[in-house]
């Protein structure tokens, strides 16, 4: 019965995989290695003064106050967005299990932000935040709050940017957690109800432990996606005012394509990749641990 599989186990299965690996070799592995190579040189390879400078670009970036600022901003941005999307998304998912009428319509409405391109979200919110005719100020005027230049002031620009991320991705957290909740087995809950456990105990003792893998996947996706945000931030503030909302992606883009410092940009990008890999590695390790 299994002789077909045994024969294939040796090598021919790899023929099916080979084409995709060849493409990935060209579009992922080669570019990343190329990027690593650029990061060790002072100028692009085509330049006549191009010379090997070792780790100079990395040292430059680590000591660069703008890079440090961008890193801190990205951490603040990511952790705030993560916190609020998880809290809001989880609340919505739990509440959605309590209602029985209109679920489908509400789900469609809640999906909208997630289906919008991050670029379009940025552009839309640029309009929403406009100090003169934006809906946000119009809304705040109704409740007697002074109009603000949300994106132009040092104090509010970061909050405005984080809110946009929360607005867009709460629906993703909601959707995944809701799917996770719907897939949970019924028996533990019935047993707990018979034992007279209250809903808080049921939530912390049964729901959360059962949902742990789902929650970890959501956390991982949200961490990585917020950490690498570019589109919406680029059209909303482009790092401004000053460097109040400068994020890593924006800064690396600016170094590489505006100041034309490809070596520094590549070094920054490699460090960003290493940091993201580290975060993902920790999540994955934890995920495997609880799955086994």
């Amino acid at each position, binding site marked *: *019965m299994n002789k*077909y599989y045994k024969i*294939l*186990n040796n090598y021919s299965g*790899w023929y099916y*995989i080979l*084409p*995709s690996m060849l*493409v*990935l070799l*060209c*579009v*992922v592995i*080669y*570019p990343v290695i*190329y*990027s690593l190579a*650029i990061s060790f040189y002072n100028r692009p390879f*085509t330049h006549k003064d191009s010379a090997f400078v070792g780790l100079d670009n990395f040292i430059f970036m680590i000591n660069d106050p703008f890079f440090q600022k961008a890193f801190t901003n990205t951490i603040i941005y990511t952790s705030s967005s993560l916190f609020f999307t998880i809290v809001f998304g989880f609340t*919505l998912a739990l509440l*959605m299990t*309590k209602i029985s009428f209109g679920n489908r319509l*509400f789900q469609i*409405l*809640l*999906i*909208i*932000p997630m*289906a*919008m391109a991050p670029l*379009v979200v940025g*552009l*839309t*919110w640029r*309009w929403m935040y406009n100090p*003169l*005719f934006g*809906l946000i100020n119009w809304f705040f005027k109704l409740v007697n709050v002074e109009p603000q230049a949300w994106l132009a002031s040092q104090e509010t620009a970061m909050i405005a940017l984080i809110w946009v991320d929360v607005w867009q991705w*709460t629906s*993703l957290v909601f*959707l*995944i957690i809701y799917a*996770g909740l719907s*897939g949970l087995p019924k028996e533990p809950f019935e047993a707990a109800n018979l034992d007279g456990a209250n809903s808080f105990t049921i939530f912390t003792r049964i729901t959360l432990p059962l949902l742990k893998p*789902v929650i970890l*996947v*959501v956390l991982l996706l949200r961490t990585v996606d917020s950490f*690498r945000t*570019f*589109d919406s931030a*680029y059209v909303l503030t482009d790092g401004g005012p000053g460097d109040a909302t400068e994020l*890593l*992606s924006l800064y690396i883009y600016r170094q590489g*394509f505006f100041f034309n410092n*490809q070596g520094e*940009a590549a070094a920054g990008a490699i460090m*960003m990749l290493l940091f*993201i*890999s580290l975060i*993902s590695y920790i999540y994955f390790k934890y995920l495997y641990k609880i799955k086994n």
Partner: protein
Amino acid sequence: MKNKEIMIKIVAYVVIIIFSLISFIPFITGLITAFKPETIQIHSPPIWIFEPTLSNYERILFTKGNLYNLMNSFIVTFFNIIISLVVGIPAAYALARFNLKGSGALLSWIISLRMIPPVVVAIPFFSLAQSFNLYDSYIGLTLSYMCFSIPMVIWIMRGFCVEIPKELEESAMMDGCSRLYAIYKIVLPLMIPGIVATTLLVVMVIWNEYLIALILTGREAQTLPVSTARYITRVRIEWGSLFAANSLIVIPILILAISIQKHLVRGLTFGTIK
């Protein structure tokens, strides 16, 4: 007890309705602005009752040339998805069916590609595109997007392949079919719902992509998101044109997202949750 349940229900409805409105309002006000004549686009308080006009769409599509960008987006997305499916599906099948040595490590590596920040590949893509003469070309952009689409195709399709019972092909093969014929006759038809869902999920990512397109395209291959963002200039913002173009990006994807809602979670989590 009964009262408490009713209270919970009321709270649930109130919170869900508030969040739904918050999600919906920015989208719908943008869409409405796309149909507003220029004179009332930026008015405070916003004007809700007006005679809708298609002039914004006419302008962006035929005067500003966004019809061409729309076509570019379509071409790049189309060829990207075709090639990704052709090379991705066999890999997905093999990783689901054969007990290959090292396939676990390979799968972990493929999923880790989901984490790469676009800006990291943007820098080498730019240099490489120039040295291979692929800057501002469909080929350059289509190829670059493979780094997002192929991992997605492999992971999502693998999930669908695992669900197809292997007894079906085995019995066909015992009747004397070759494996490839069994795949073609039996597995492929069963894969079609999965292929449709995968296609739509990948289209969502490629169609919306901005950073790589911004870096790799000039006049010729510019996609719709890149040309849309150009309505913001230092001098002024053409809100009517901007929102008309926005809606061209969003509406097709929104329809796709709603129609594949069932598979959305699986696609977004790379098949880790069904």
